[in-house]
């Protein structure tokens, strides 16, 4: 997956008014609450063909940076 696709996917999952960028997190995006986070993870899981659901660190990855770090470690980001 490309990083820009992940950013777009997060924006759509949250139905966020603001743009999502590398610095976005639960701290600065109002829609990124616990339910919003689950929407992001579900969308990532669909986009990765079910790979995301097996990654246990993702439940704590409440920022774009953390999601990128995990996906890089797992070899999901191109």
């Amino acid at each position, binding site marked *: 997956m490309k990083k820009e696709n992940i950013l777009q996917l997060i924006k759509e999952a949250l*139905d966020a008014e603001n743009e999502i960028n590398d610095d976005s997190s639960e701290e600065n995006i109002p*829609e990124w609450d*616990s*339910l919003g*986070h*689950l929407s992001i*993870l*579900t969308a990532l*899981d669909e986009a990765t063909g079910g790979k*995301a*659901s097996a*990654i*246990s*660190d*993702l*439940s*704590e990855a409440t920022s774009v940076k953390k999601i990128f770090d995990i996906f890089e470690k797992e070899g999901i980001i191109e």
Partner: protein
Amino acid sequence: MKKTTKEYIFENKDLGKYEFTLDTSTFEPTQTTVSIIHSSLPLINCDSKILDLGCGCGIVSIILSKLIKKNLHFFASDISESVEEIVQKNAMRHNVNIVVKRSNIFEAWSNQKFDLIINDISGVSDKVAEISPWFNNIACETGPGGDILVKRVINESTKHLKKGGKLVFPIISFSNEDEIIDSASKVFSSVKLLRKDFWPTPKEMHDHLPLLNTLKQSGLISFEEKFGTIIGHTSVFEASL
């Protein structure tokens, strides 16, 4: 014991922003409340007589009244001892008319029939209630399948619905969903799933995964393990006579 009140702000992108007064005996609105409001909106007709069962602070009646600008007749009840005072206060604040009574399920509504009963009384397995933060360690007498109260509502509601009337009720996945649906199917001609919303469980429940798995294997509850967390769901059903 003197009850203290607190202000509660409800905000939802689709439903709007509202302020309510709660006290220590009032359950705080949950995601289930939001699911129920969304599910009930398309079922309400002009002149509908609606009962909001387990109304808490009156949030369901008040938001539906504000969103549906029709001639509706809202009735609401809850077992909490201050329900009349709290709901009337919130109704006045939002300029909405609600007939409110303190009632254990249908006790205060004998001989009354409604077009729509919106039930916000649900339950979880009493074993789950013991380890969850939802009941503040208060004993939850809902049985191991968490279905006792909901099944009582389902069975008694048939006596309080007009011809063609509907019951909207939620099922939390930490209860015996199959048993509850089976019970509803026996007394209603149609039971239809309206929506299903997933939510992450509170972290304090994760230490009890072995117990949760035992209950799941017994068919008493259901949940998913994904992303390193435990995910439950709330299903909202429409039952028609």
